[in-house]
Structure formats: structure tokens, C-alpha cells
């Protein structure tokens, strides 16, 4: 009999919560996803953390999943909503396969479907609390797009969600170029992920990098990045000014 009834503050404009279906706040969340186009396709990176408020509660959550033959979806935000989106996409791909007409949904189409879903939910004030990154290759054409929980969508040569927008994209703007090799792409993503690890409180040091090319999707095994702490400036930062930091 834990009397934790859902209580709103006195000055709230929201109606009674019980008679509306609206996601008010996220519970288990994933942090940044970073992705870029390279020579053969798309590279995407995400850590495996599922945070519960400030607690780093789940450390083996796969936040990137293949969709159909041609696409890869990465998500940040509420994990339960991401799991629901995967179910919607499962159904979409199933129906697509059932046509059995030799055609299959490419990344552009999947991105458009997701955009419509996210925007329509936003209009009903019941968003899916995610920022999505959709990448893929079909018939030699590389595609990389993103959709947010309010339906903002666009495509670009490199995209990121959450903190990644602030920390990773500036790095990518400087160092990305057309026709990156696989090795250079991976190193660039790792550079971004390392910065996020240093500066994002909800980052977890266990990540996966996924690659999608004309041949298909590969998601790497989980691994950890080395971090660098041995700088003389770090060893005794308050030496010249006791009490400072």
C-alpha cells in the first residue's frame, strides 16, 4: 500500500493524468548516438548504457538494430519506446516482405515512416521519447537521417543525438570528408565517443560500432575505450592556488 499516487503541483495546466494516454517523462534512457557516411556506407556508434535518472542502471543495452536488409536504426531516449518502435518496424518489414515483389524498403522510406510516426505522436501530445538515427545503403546510394521526438527530421553526412550534437558534431564538421576509409571512420567515431565518455555523465564505457554497406549490417562486439588521465595539469591542479580546482 505504497501511497505514491501520481501528484501534480498545484499550478499545473495538465488535466487529470489518468484519462489521457501521454508519455510525460522518460524512465530508462539511452544517451548519444553518433553516425557518419564513409566510402562504403554508414558507420554508427552508441554506448550500451540504459540510465535510470542519474543511476547508470543497465550496461548492456543494444541501442542499434538492423532494419530489413538495407537499414540500421540507432536510438537515444526512452528504451521502452525504442522497443515499441522496433515492433512497429518489424510489422512494416513483414508486410513489405509479404508483397514478395522483389522490392524492399530502403533507408529513405524507413526514415520517412519513422518521421510520420514521431510527428503524429507529437501532435497528439503523446510522443515516443526518442531521438532516432537511421542509416543505410541501397543500390549504391548512401543515406543518413535523423528524427527527434517532436518530428524534426533531416539528412546529412554526419548526425548525432543528445550530447553528441554539442560535443561530437563540431569534431565531425572539422574532420569529416567525403570517402573516408573504414579505419578513418572508426577512428573518428571513437574520437567522438571518447569525448562523450569524458564529458557526458550518462555515458558508459562499453560501446558498439555498427557498419552498414551494400552487403548488409555488421554490429561489432561490445568493447571499451582507453581514457587518458595522466597529464601534469591533472596531477596537482590546485598547486598554484590552494582551494581552487
Amino acid at each position, binding site marked *: *500500500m*505504497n*501511497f*505514491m499516487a*501520481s*501528484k501534480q503541483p498545484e499550478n499545473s495546466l495538465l488535466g487529470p*493524468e*489518468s484519462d*489521457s*494516454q*501521454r*508519455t*510525460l*517523462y*522518460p*524512465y*530508462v534512457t539511452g544517451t548519444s548516438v553518433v553516425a557518419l557516411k564513409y566510402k562504403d556506407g554508414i558507420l554508427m556508434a552508441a554506448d550500451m548504457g*540504459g540510465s*535510470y*535518472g542519474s*543511476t547508470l*542502471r*543497465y550496461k*548492456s*543495452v543494444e541501442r542499434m538494430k538492423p532494419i530489413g536488409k538495407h537499414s540500421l536504426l540507432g536510438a537515444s531516449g*526512452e*528504451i*521502452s519506446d525504442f*522497443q*515499441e518502435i522496433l515492433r512497429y518496424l518489424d510489422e512494416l518489414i513483414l508486410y513489405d516482405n509479404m508483397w514478395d515483389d522483389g522490392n524492399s524498403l530502403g533507408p529513405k522510406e524507413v526514415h520517412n515512416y519513422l518521421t510520420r510516426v514521431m510527428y503524429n505522436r507529437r501532435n497528439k501530445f503523446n510522443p515516443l521519447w526518442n531521438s532516432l538515427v537511421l542509416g543505410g545503403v541501397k543500390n549504391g546510394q548512401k543515406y543518413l537521417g535523423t528524427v527527434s521526438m517532436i518530428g524534426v527530421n533531416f539528412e546529412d553526412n554526419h548526425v548525432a543525438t543528445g550530447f553528441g550534437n554539442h560535443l561530437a558534431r563540431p569534431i565531425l564538421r572539422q574532420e569529416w570528408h567525403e570517402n573516408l576509409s573504414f579505419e578513418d571512420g572508426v577512428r573518428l567515431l571513437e574520437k567522438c565517443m571518447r569525448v562523450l565518455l569524458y564529458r557526458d555523465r550518462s555515458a558508459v564505457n562499453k560501446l558498439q560500432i555498427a557498419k552498414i554497406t551494400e552487403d548488409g549490417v555488421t554490429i561489432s562486439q561490445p568493447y571499451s575505450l582507453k581514457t587518458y588521465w595522466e597529464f601534469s595539469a591533472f596531477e596537482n591542479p590546485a598547486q598554484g592556488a590552494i582551494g581552487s580546482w
Partner: protein
Amino acid sequence: MDLEMNLNAPHSMGTTIIGVTYNGGVVLGADSRTSTGMYVANRASDKITQLTDNVYVCRSGSAADSQIVSDYVRYFLHQHTIQLGQSATSKVAANLIRLLSYNNKNMLETGLIVGGWDKYEGGKIYAIPLGGTLIEQPFAIGGSGSSYLYGFFDQAWKEGMTKDEAEQLVVKAVSLAIARDGASGGVVRTVIINSEGVTRNFYPGDKLQLWHEELEPQNSLLDLLNSSNPEPMNI
């Protein structure tokens, strides 16, 4: 009695619940305290609830919400078993819990740990926290008492434990949580599920190991004063 809570950040709920896999099945554990504000409404509740012969669920959070969800899922699983012609799997049970938790996320406040054994996948543990995320794990902890156990499990958990090692770990963990969490207390209940069946165990509060700053319980001060090793009255 303080009933004001800030509900805009995910918060833990009264209780300690644990689910652990071992090399042959699962062990579920929980404390037995149900509180209404500061009052302990039930000091010997059973938070490990049966869903089918081979699948149980640990309940935390709102007692009403967790009971109604497990009642519905028990009902659905019963029908599913009849239609399927054989026992339901722990994965199906977990997904039914997820469906209810996710689709009613605005109204429900319950975190659940589903544990069971089936012939296809052996012992499995599924955590379904607030919001309705479904996550399969080798072990899971939940409830307000679990905050005190993250570090403990990071250190003490190992893959491939025996049944007895797993149960000892669960009992120790719930007992540690009870020592520090005001919303957890009472007895430690465990349920072990494997191919041979289900075993329920009961560890009364006074039989658990003593932790830091806890003293051996006595019948009376008089016993101490009259004992053969006199405990002097300290000033």
C-alpha cells in the same frame, strides 16, 4: 507522515527484490515489508508471486498496481497454456508483463522481475522497470533497497554459480539491503525454480547474519546483567 514526493524523476520504490540465474535455473528473492507512508502495514508479505507452475514474479512499487498486473498476467498465461498445450515460457510471461506495464505507463507504478525455467531456454531473468522496458539479464535487482546493492553485485556476482551459492548470494544481498533501507524489512523469502520444480524458502529476520553496528539480539537486559560474563553497564 511525509507523503509529498517529486514524481518527475524516476524514483525507487519500497522493497528489495532480486532475481539471479545459476547453472540450472533461477533464484528469486525479496524482503517482506509493505509500508503505508511510515507505517508498516504488513511485516510478512509475500512479494514473490506465482504466475504459472514454472514462472514467478517479484513485485515492487505500488502493491495494488503490482498485484493487478500479476493477476491479469496469470489469467492470460492460464489461457495461453490451455491453447498452447504445454507450459508457458518465461519469455512469454515477461512479454505479457511488459505489454501491461508499457501500455499503461502513465498510470502504473510498479517495477517487476520475472524469473522462470522452461525446457527451451532453461533459467531466465527478465527485468521490467518503470516505463515498461523489457531487459533480459543474468541477474536483476529492483525496489528502493536495490540502490544499496549495485556495488555489492558488481563485486560479488559471478557467472555459473551453483544453486546453493546463488541462494546464499540472494539472501545475503536482501539482508544487506534491509540493514540500510527503511522501506525494506522483515523476512527474506526465496523461490528457486529449475527443471525439478519450485522450492520456497523462508529466512526469518532474527536468523540473518549481523552487519555493521548490529548487535546480537537478547531477551532482556537482565540476561546480560546476570550472565556469567558480566557485561558492565557502560557510562
